[in-house]
């Protein structure tokens, strides 16, 4: 991989991190309604995966989708504005944090129903195949989502029809407050690929380059008409399930241990080690990320709520 690309990846990871931190701050300030799920600590997956795609490829995402959207190219201002429910938001305030759509960038929706996006992504794969395009669709899902019936039906269909779909599990070891190991009887979710006769790949989700490589490979398989791949990226979410979660299901030590494995620090260190990056340059990138979030915050806070008159549009 070329160094500029690596820089872009690092910068995107920093922006995702800054975005999540900013959302947290705004939530604590009471500016954001509803339930917010942050992806802090999982930037290796979102950035590694989305940046291995082409601009006209599609993604579907989950309730924890900020990182995916940013990495797929969504502009920060309308995105933050949407999280704040403003008229200038991506979806005019209709969707909020859990339902972000940016069709021109191939973001076909962060879906709030766990597993609900998997059949939809599969259908996007059908559409691509039907039109004879060389696009792919990447379907993000949490580990918990793999226990939904929708997962099973969709993967079976995707595999039978050899659809250009990448099923990517962000396995952060827990679903809401329930540890994965209490709700499945297997070690690696990637093994579920065997039920569909497709490749299942376990990836270190905190290694952005490894994720990138695995997704690139799966995408080229899919473009070649060889059908879907199931990718399991093992990672961790630093924050609670949602902002406000007391996290009864895990220890401080576990969190600290994973914080030490920070995907951003790790990638930056590797770049510093091979002399492509200096600490100063890293500092500058971090500052820039903050500055872009400042702008986005100003934009979002300065935007009006949607006009009540528009409520019946687009049903």
């Amino acid at each position, binding site marked *: 991989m070329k160094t500029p690309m690596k820089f872009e990846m690092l910068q995107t990871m920093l922006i995702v991190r800054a975005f999540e931190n900013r959302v947290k701050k705004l939530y604590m300030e009471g500016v954001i309604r509803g339930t917010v799920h942050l992806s802090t600590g999982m930037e290796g997956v979102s950035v590694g995966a989305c940046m291995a795609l082409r601009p006209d490829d599609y993604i579907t995402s989950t309730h924890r989708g900020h990182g995916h959207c940013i990495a797929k190219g969504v502009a920060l201002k309308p995105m933050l504005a949407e999280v704040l429910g403003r008229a200038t938001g991506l979806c005019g305030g209709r969707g909020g944090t859990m339902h972000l759509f940016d069709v021109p960038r191939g973001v076909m929706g962060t879906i709030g129903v766990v597993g609900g996006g998997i059949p939809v992504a599969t259908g996007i794969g059908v559409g691509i195949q*039907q039109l004879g395009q060389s696009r792919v669709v990447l379907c993000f899902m949490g580990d918990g989502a793999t226990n939904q019936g929708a997962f099973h039906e969709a993967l079976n269909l995707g595999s039978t029809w050899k659809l250009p779909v990448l099923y990517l599990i962000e396995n952060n070891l827990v679903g809401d407050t329930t540890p994965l190991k209490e709700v499945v009887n297997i070690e690696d979710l990637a093994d579920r690929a065997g039920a569909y006769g497709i490749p299942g790949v376990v990836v270190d989700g905190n290694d952005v380059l490894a994720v990138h490589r695995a997704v690139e490979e799966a995408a080229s398989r899919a473009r070649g008409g060889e059908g879907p791949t199931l990718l399991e990226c093992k990672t961790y979410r630093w924050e609670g399930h949602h902002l406000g979660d007391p996290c009864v299901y895990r220890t401080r030590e576990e969190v600290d241990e994973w914080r030490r494995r920070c995907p951003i620090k790790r990638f930056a260190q590797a770049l510093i080690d091979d002399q492509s990056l200096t600490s100063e340059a890293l500092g500058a990138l971090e500052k820039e990320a903050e500055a872009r979030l400042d702008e986005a915050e100003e934009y979002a806070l300065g935007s009006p709520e949607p006009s009540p008159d528009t409520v019946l549009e687009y049903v």
Partner: protein
Amino acid sequence: MPSEARNLRRIRCLNMSSEGNVTMKTVTYLEAMREAMDEELARDETVFLLGEDIGPQGGVFGSTRGLLEKYGPRRVRQTPISECAIIGAACGASLVGTRPVAEIMYFDFVAIGMDQIFSQVGKLRYMSNGQMTLPLVIRTQCGGGRGKGPQHSSSTEAWFVHSPGIKVAMPSTPGDVKGLLKTAIRDDAPVLFIENSFLYNTKGEVSEEECLIPFGQADVKREGTDVTIVATSAMVQLALVAAESLKELDISAEVIDPRTLVPLDMDTILRSVAKTNRAVIVHEAFTRCGVGAEIAARLMEEAYDDLDAPVARVGGLEVPMPFAQSLEEQVMPSVTKIVKQARAVCYR
């Protein structure tokens, strides 16, 4: 086509600027459906079909017979028994430039894909603030009367009328099924298209020329002056028979088929009730919380002063459809029940 099956009729189609005289032919409800799909597959190559057993067999009822041979396996896609994935696949495919027509074998099984239809299909356009359109059709067939038992006889259209973002069609004749299905396939909104296998072999006229029937336009199947009978799907036939019986009692019944429930053409119903001052609503679905309740409530809201009697409802009993004929007949609406209610609202 024998000559007695052809004639000229004045009909109103969406794609004709005004009413015109067109040549008609007689086909079955099933043939009309197949023609609609065939014509739309031929016209627009982004249209495709998916569903269980729709390939070589042409569907368990035969509605897609011959289409696999004609359009190939990419356009006529036979699926696993996975209703959730079928609806999801149609949903996703519709988002990226194709027009899927999905078949769910029995209406009961739409419940298996209920999240996909309710939380995804019906909501994606609104949630995305109009960024997305979902030109998809979910075809299915409903109803009892054939001894299919408690898990293959449901009519739950009311669930979908009570859900946002989905149009609902429920045609009763070959002409309607053909014209509405073609309209549904061309519509940019998701459509739940509810056929009735009880009607599959019934015959009726369809236009030789292309005829698109608009959604939201009820059809007066029979004119009358004393009581308005609003009936859907297979119940339209019963209502027409009931109207004949009522004639002998000197009651002139008007029979209206809304044809689509979302959008619902209240205007035609209101116009009729303004004339008759009485209404009976008939559907096969459970009476309780059915579409009849909605129409009755709206008649009260919008035609209170026109009504000379409370609106009556004739619907299915609130039990799973029993298998035995003696019980099934008890559950379903019947000509007798319709006549009884029509007489009651006429105080006769």
